[in-house]
């Protein structure tokens, strides 16, 4: 069933997939690991045909994994074949050869000759053009196996591999064999035509026609025009009938180039335009095809010295070329996905770099030899593997892009770390804890109000104090230590601003005992959060009475070397303030930071710390007391 589904791939990929998936379910139910692996392999191959790299990859991997546990040679062989084709699809030639050889060995053991023939042909392609001896060897083996199997499709496949080997040889200057090769292809075509109904992969027939036509074109003059045109016409028919893009493109293009070489520019132009019109009829867009047609038209105009149309074609060519490049970005993303799943990615990248170098050299050589026609032909010769070749250039860009994104990732990591440390830096947090945004914007609102009421003098005074406080806090948050005197100045400034804001609704008093040296050094901005607490939560609800009093008292514990700061208010008290359930994230943050700072100090001085309690003194006054013990040297 899986095999039937697989064979359907050319006619209707979707129904083929459904059939194979059904077979897969049956295999699962029957608990046959072997069949399961084979089904996955078939699925992978079908997705390959649909150029769906993602599903191709996942199914090939699944086939391989399951085959490992299946302990079946057939499963192994199919899985290895799927992996081999995957590697070849993503241009991992060494990997492809490794897997294909494995599949080849097992299939030959199993005497599955038609599979052997196909794989051997594929191996032959993989060795091309680097190792001609191996190319020939495997092409020959493919032919042998194909004959043994008697399967028309395998025979065609194998013969094409052999033909490709011959053409490689000719490219390297071996012209003597030309007649032999032509005869070989004629025979191939004859065989293919005889058994056309048995051959599922119609594109291979098209490839045979194309190869023969280009051989004629390249052959000795005078060239047999009739033969060329017949073969190209046949290829075009096949391309149209089965919607084989490659075949259609290459045959129309080749025909156009033939007329161009012949000097019949008008016919050539018509052909290229017919190709474009045909493509525009199709429901999907093939930018690559359009670009190459316009490229040909461009070359044509250059030959005719018709610069106006040259310019027009160039514009169109550029448009499609851009679209084509956008497509390749997408393809690169896909290739990158597959790449990460590949186990031997480093080895492969190195190999690819070598391949790319080779590819580059080849190209330069091609340019040097002779203009556009030859390059066109070189591409044609590779029509079967055209698509894969086409990806190679992109690998270069892909590698660069990957290097770039790695770099970006590193930079981002670095930035994150820096951000983190910055966030954690006490200085920043300290500043944030002192400059309550609520306080800042309310202060600005007060200034706005005074301006609106034209109370110029109070506005100027308030603004001046606000600027002074901002400056003090900015400066002190950067210091390790400040004198008590400075701290008291900042506190006074802050409290005055709060008084102005709250309509002088409370009074304050700061007392320093005589034995406290005003020049003693303490960490900056420790006390302000407690003062803020006392005002906002204790005294503010009572501003109407005008009886609120804030006392700040400094004394010295000389033996233990610490300063005692007591902040007392006669406000509504802790319990009442908590009942008001005001969520104040700023308040909790600044108290927390002060707590952390005092804890740090405890390491050097046991007595450092603070406590906030409800007032319960003999006078019966309500309110709250905060006591801070600040270490001094």
């Amino acid at each position, binding site marked *: 069933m899986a095999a039937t589904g697989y064979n359907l791939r050319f006619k209707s990929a979707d129904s083929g997939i459904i059939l194979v998936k059904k077979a897969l379910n049956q295999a699962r139910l029957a608990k046959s690991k072997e069949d399961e692996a084979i089904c996955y392999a078939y699925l992978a191959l079908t997705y390959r045909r649909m150029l769906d790299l993602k599903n191709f990859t996942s199914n090939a991997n699944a086939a391989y994994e399951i085959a490992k546990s299946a302990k079946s040679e057939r499963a192994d062989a199919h899985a290895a074949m799927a992996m081999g084709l995957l590697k070849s699809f993503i241009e991992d030639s060494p990997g492809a050869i490794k897997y294909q050889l494995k599949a080849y060995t097992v299939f030959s053991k199993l005497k599955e000759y038609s599979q052997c023939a196909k794989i051997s042909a594929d191996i032959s392609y993989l060795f091309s053009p680097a190792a001609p001896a191996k190319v020939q060897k495997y092409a020959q083996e493919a032919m042998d196996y194909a004959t043994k199997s008697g399967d028309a499709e395998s025979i065609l496949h194998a013969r094409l591999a052999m033909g490709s080997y011959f053409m490689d040889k000719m490219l390297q200057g071996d012209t003597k064999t030309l007649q032999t090769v032509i005869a070989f292809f004629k025979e191939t075509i004859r065989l293919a035509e005889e058994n056309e109904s048995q051959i599922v992969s119609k594109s291979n027939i098209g490839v045979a026609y194309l190869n023969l036509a280009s051989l004629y074109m390249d052959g000795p003059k005078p060239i047999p025009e009739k033969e060329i045109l017949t073969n190209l016409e046949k290829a075009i028919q096949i391309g149209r009938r089965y919607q084989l893009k490659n075949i259609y493109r290459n045959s129309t293009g080749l025909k156009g180039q033939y007329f161009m070489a012949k000097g019949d520019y008008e016919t050539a132009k018509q052909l290229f335009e017919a190709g474009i019109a045909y493509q525009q009829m199709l429901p999907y867009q093939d930018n690559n095809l359009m670009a190459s047609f316009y490229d040909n038209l461009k070359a044509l105009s250059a030959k005719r010295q018709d610069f106006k149309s040259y310019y027009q074609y160039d514009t169109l060519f550029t448009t499609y070329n851009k*679209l084509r490049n*956008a*497509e390749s*970005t*997408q393809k690169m*993303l896909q290739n*990158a*996905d597959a790449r990460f799943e590949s186990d031997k990615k480093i080895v492969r990248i190195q190999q690819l770099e070598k391949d790319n170098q080779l590819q580059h050299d080849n190209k330069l050589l091609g340019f040097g030899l002779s203009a556009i026609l030859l390059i066109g032909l070189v591409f044609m010769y590779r029509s079967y593997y055209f698509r894969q070749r086409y990806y190679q250039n992109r690998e270069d860009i892909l590698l660069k892009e990957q290097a770039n*994104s790695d770099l970006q990732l590193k930079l*981002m990591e670095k930035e994150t770390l820096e951000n983190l440390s910055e966030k954690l830096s006490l200085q920043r947090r300290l500043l944030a804890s002192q400059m309550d*945004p*609520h306080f*800042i*914007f*309310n202060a*600005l*609102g*007060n*200034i*706005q*109000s*005074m301006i*609106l*009421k034209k109370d110029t003098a109070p506005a100027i005074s308030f603004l001046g104090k606000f600027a002074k406080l901002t400056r003090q806090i900015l400066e002190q948050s950067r210091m390790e230590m400040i004198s008590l005197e400075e701290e008291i100045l900042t506190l006074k400034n802050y409290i005055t601003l709060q008084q102005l*804001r*709250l*309509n002088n609704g409370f009074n304050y008093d700061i007392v320093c005992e005589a034995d406290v040296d005003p020049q003693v050094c303490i960490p900056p901005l420790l006390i302000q959060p407690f003062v803020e607490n006392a005002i906002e939560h204790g005294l*503010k*609800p009572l501003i109407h009475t005008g009886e609120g009093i804030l006392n700040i008292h400094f004394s010295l514990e000389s033996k233990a070397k610490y300063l005692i700061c007591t902040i007392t208010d006669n406000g509504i008290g802790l319990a009442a303030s908590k009942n*008001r*359930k*005001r969520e104040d*994230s700023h308040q909790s943050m600044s108290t927390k930071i002060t707590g952390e700072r005092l804890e740090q100090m405890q390491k050097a001085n046991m007595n450092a710390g603070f406590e906030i309690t409800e007032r319960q003194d003999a006078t019966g006054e309500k309110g709250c007391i905060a006591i801070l013990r600040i270490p001094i040297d």
Partner: protein
Amino acid sequence: MYKTIIIEDEYRLREALAILLEMVAPEAVQVVGYAENIGDAKNLIDRLKPDLVFMDIMLTDGTAFDVLEQISYRRFQLIFTTAYEQHAVKAFKYSALDYLLKPIDLQELEAAIARLPLRDGNEMVETQINELQRNLQKTPDRLVLPTQEAMYVIQLAQIIRCETSGSYTTFHVADGRKIMVSKPLKSYEDILLLPDFYRIHQSHLININYIESYSREGMIKMKDQTAVPVARAKKEQFFSFMKDGFM
């Protein structure tokens, strides 16, 4: 004429707002009362039945939300004022409630007053207040869309995409509705956020959970079969986002 109450616990800020209103809309707005704590605010609203209330979030003895819970009269339009309450501001945005930042900007006040006639309707304010209370308690998962005819409450997960033209934004909702709001897309940009929402274009913000496919040319097909372009400048970033997820 809008009968207006100002609830604000700092006397100078109260005065400032009254003067600013006199400058901006002497004809349209008449301030009839002040309150600075929860109890006074409740009594004043229930007694005077205002058309418009400016409400500071932080009051001496609690918050504006305490007031909203306690009042029995709710048929007024509401504009919040705040010095700095990020959490609350976010909740306002989801509830489509108007707010002003202190010190109050003259132009912003003018714009807020100009928006008032667009939002008449009693149930509408009721809806917004209910949504606000919900949004303050939990992470907002719905959005209020105010239009001429109604207040729509839409689940964030039901928004397929937003498209802007000028100062209007059209919301495409999963049930097929298209709701047009007279606000620019920019005002939704900071509440419709990653990981679900992505601003792919000057005029388009999409819910990435509704992407059906995206093409190499930078067109995104949404599940409602509409196509949306990705801005050239955002293509690379967007594709890498789709590939690797949120970084």
